[in-house]
């Protein structure tokens, strides 16, 4: 249980997917302009990330690795993720149209989101067991959500600030992202303090 909590909290706070591992920067910068799209996007990412990890882990450990096909990891994973996104979209549209209305639109966008493939590969690289892999992807998705929410708040402030002309737009957004990333350093010792 303790290991699970350690994995969960380090994925959310210490090794935050966006701010410390630099995965999923495109949506992080792209959809953080308002809180509503940020929410839709991060729920879609969380959902797909967990389902994708739940599928890619057995595919690698039961199918590819025992048969000496570990080198096919990248190709198989991206295909699994792409088809998975397509299937989720179709199922959602037919089964839960209201959820599809709010999440469906973000689904095609996250096929090539590096956070999803990144989470799937990290689970294998770190040699997590299946439950650990699931917890890690929940943490990663939640960390993405947290970073996106905080940053959406920061950006709404920055929008009203008087910024020098050459820094307007993307540059000031990135510099404020740097400040948010610094604030996450505050969590560095958290794991040892809580569980050590």
């Amino acid at each position, binding site marked *: 249980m303790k290991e699970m909590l350690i994995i969960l909290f380090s994925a959310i706070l210490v090794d935050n997917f966006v701010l410390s591992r630099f995965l999923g920067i495109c949506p992080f910068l792209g959809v953080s302009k308002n809180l509503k*799209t940020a929410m839709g996007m991060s729920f879609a990412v969380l959902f797909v990330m967990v389902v994708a990890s739940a599928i890619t882990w057995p595919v690698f450990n039961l199918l590819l690795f025992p048969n000496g096909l570990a080198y096919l990891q*990248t190709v198989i994973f*991206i295909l699994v993720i792409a088809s998975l996104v397509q299937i989720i979209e179709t199922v959602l549209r037919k089964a839960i149209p209201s959820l599809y209305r709010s999440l469906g639109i973000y689904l095609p*966008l996250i096929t*090539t989101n590096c956070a999803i*493939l990144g989470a799937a590969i990290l689970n294998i690289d770190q040699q997590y067991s299946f439950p650990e892999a699931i917890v890690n992807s929940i943490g990663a998705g939640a960390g993405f959500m947290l970073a996106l929410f905080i940053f959406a708040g920061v950006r709404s402030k920055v929008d009203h600030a008087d910024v020098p002309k050459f820094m307007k737009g993307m*540059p000031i957004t990135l510099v404020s992202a*740097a400040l948010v990333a610094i604030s996450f350093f505050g969590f560095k010792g958290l794991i040892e303090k809580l569980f050590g």
Partner: protein
Amino acid sequence: MATKKMSLRHEFTKGLVKENPVLRLMLGVCPTLAVTTTAKNGIGMGLAATFVLVSSNIVISLLRPVIPEKVRIPAFITVIASFVTIVQMLMQAYLPDLNESLGIFIPLITVNCIILARAEMFASKNKVLPSIVDGLGMGAGYSATLVLMGAIREIMGNGSIMDFKLPLIGTGTIEPMLIMILPPGGFFVFGILIALAQKLSEHMDKKNPDAAIDDSCAGAINDKTACLLCGACSLHQGMDEAVDEMREKQDKDGGDRS
């Protein structure tokens, strides 16, 4: 012949500054921020991505008549992923140290928006030779940016360049700023570089107004769906509008999304 040469030259040089994939089009940002802690990592990542970019451009441009329109994106991704696997295996065999320091970002070249965007926007519409040149130009622009960023961060954060200790800052007379090689430094240096690239590009447009490109989606990406696949385009045009547009399109398609 002269015009052909000119246009090939244009295909190559546009990737360096005007349509620099990272600084102007904001494609492939994740590895740019993550691996550029040293100039050496920047070179490694740049070359790996360039190799994948050129090879996949060749294959996709050759397969152009064969790939059905509807499944083109999955087909492109499969081609790209195969080349990424080749790079991964080569790196593991011959450059294990570099492979270690680039880590997860080697397999993640697969989902690097630059490669998919060039496949969708250029290779799938052009002959082989221009596609190769386009790949080389974009790759060169990407590598140059990565090396520049890696060099800045390595000098300021570690006091060395290409593992060579610099005088003063490397010997501890001036304390290097550790934060530069940590994640926040990546965001910060990248932000400053983008500001500079904007300024430079503005300056170039003033000198040569005919060559000014549409800034909204920077010329390279005009198909909204492909653009949205990586979400990078949303950086330019605002995600909300893009999402609305897609929703409309989806309603119109009435079910069978390509």
